[in-house]
């Protein structure tokens, strides 16, 4: 919900900033766990974006007469993005789980999680 004091669209800037931090975290650090953390920040950016879409002042309830057309998206406080983001969170948890499993296997196989050391060992 945007209050009068906050500049309009501040939530978009927030989600954009999180997105860039996440991308940086995934691409720049050489430690795989840091990359994973960057990935989680990136996913959070998407969640913030969707949830902030749903919030609005003076919105009406998402109700419609049976058989009627849905009200225009701009008019009502929309519960759907929350439902979508529940699914996205589940996807994020799944991705994190697979990534952690891979990280454990990589640590056991190579004894390091540093990407530069890994590349050096792989090119041997």
């Amino acid at each position, binding site marked *: 919900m945007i209050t009068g004091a906050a500049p309009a669209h501040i939530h978009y800037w927030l989600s954009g900033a999180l*997105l860039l931090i996440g*991308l940086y975290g*995934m691409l720049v650090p050489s430690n*795989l766990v840091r*990359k994973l953390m960057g*990935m989680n920040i*990136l*996913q959070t*950016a*998407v969640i913030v*974006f*969707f949830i902030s*879409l749903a919030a609005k002042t003076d919105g009406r309830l998402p109700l419609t007469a049976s058989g009627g057309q*849905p009200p*225009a*998206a*701009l008019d009502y406080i*929309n519960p759907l*993005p929350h439902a*979508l983001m529940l*699914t*996205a969170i589940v*996807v994020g948890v*799944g*991705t994190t789980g*697979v*990534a952690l499993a*891979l*990280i454990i*296997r*990589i640590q056991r*196989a*190579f004894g390091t999680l540093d990407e530069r050391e*890994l590349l050096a060992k*792989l090119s041997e």
Partner: protein
Amino acid sequence: MIEHLPILVVVVPLAAAAVVPLVGLRSTRAARGVMLAALAAAAALAVAALRQALAEGALHYQLGGWPPPWGIEYVVDPLAGGMAVLVAVFGLIVAVYTGPFLVGMPPLGAGGFCAVYLLLVTGLLGIVVTGDLFNLYVFLEISSLSAYALLALGGKRSLVASFRYLVLGTIAGSFYLLGIGYLYAITGTLNMADAAARLPAVAASPAFTVAVALIVIGLTIKLALFPLHGWLPDAYTYAPTPVTGFIAAVMTKVSAYALLRIFFFVLPGGGVADDALRLLGWAAAAAALAGSAMALAQTDVRRMLAYSSVGQIGYIVLGISIGTPLALTGALLHVLNHAVTKACLFLSAGGILFRTRVADVANYRGIARRLPISMAAFTVAAASIVGLPPTAGFFSKWYLLAAVLERGAWPFALALVGSSLLSAVYLFRVVERSYLGDAPEAAVASEASEGAPLELPLGMLVPIVLLAAGVLLLGVLSHAVVSQVIAFALPVDGGR
């Protein structure tokens, strides 16, 4: 029954994936049986759905009885049906090939492999049949997560390759999801048909431009379109052969399908969407050339084939980017032909590796004498990648070239022909060496024993021979495929 076909195609492999690990605890053979039965059923259902869609128009299925735009809708039109048949049939063929790889796995491992493989097929089938933009994201992630797990099964190197794919794949998925968010913000709908009806009114909005950019970046990473192909070569090279065979055959093709579906069935033509397609066209032409050129530089046959895929994906995206009916026909035909061809190449090269431990081009000398059938299949498929008649590859390349020339786009035509010439060089050095080179003494000595069977076990040989026959058959029948299936799969307004 018929009205439930769209959901059954997805639910059957999904349910089997839940059962298989339990069965696998008792017996690996039974787990494989359940997997094969489920995939055979999915293939039969997909064929039935395609026939129905061709005969009586698209099948619409409302999940939970909620009509769109409230509920999620599955739509099997001839395009979706054709892709579903492709995915399910390849799932089945490659599943047959997995047999020798499952032997010796611990029970939980074998059951787990079958379950994750089924989930991968489920995800890809879901992408194809869904008529909902967010649902497509969920299936995209289901298939990607399964693919990360399967690709990591090839030993130490594959772990690192899989992690890198996971990082890039998640960036791609998140970008796609953000793009969908922007589309949702300006249209208030996630249903593809509904969005297509509402988008023209808001196509001038900057949010629409951002949405198109994000979706294009997301899908091109999943597609491995040059220069965003970085994850593909390592992932394909080190993964277990059946996994590479299946993923190389259909996974990038399904992403190409998603691109085609969104550009020609959801986004309004003109303006930003056309600009994006034009940009994709140049990237695709660069991909066709660069993929083939990089394949030339490889010494490992599997890595060479992986770069060859990067080039062939360029062909498909080039067809989509031109977007005329002729070009889309070529692109769809190439999706089918390249799936058959590349699966045949990867499975026969993987079989040769399985039997002889040979992966380097240099060591392919005399291989044809030791594995004559596998190498013959490899050669037929190689001819198809190059585009020699009467193999399948010739016909799709012909359509694509004709479409490019129709547009008068000479740089693209040069890229297509140049890429084919390069692929002739890198593939025929393998074929030539395997038929004309003498087997080195060391390799002969390293064979387990004199009397050991050299050709592959039947479970691996049958899929390879079927695929090689498919390469020739699709060439002969290409006109029938185009006139009886692909012609109905094109966008109704005839593309752009």
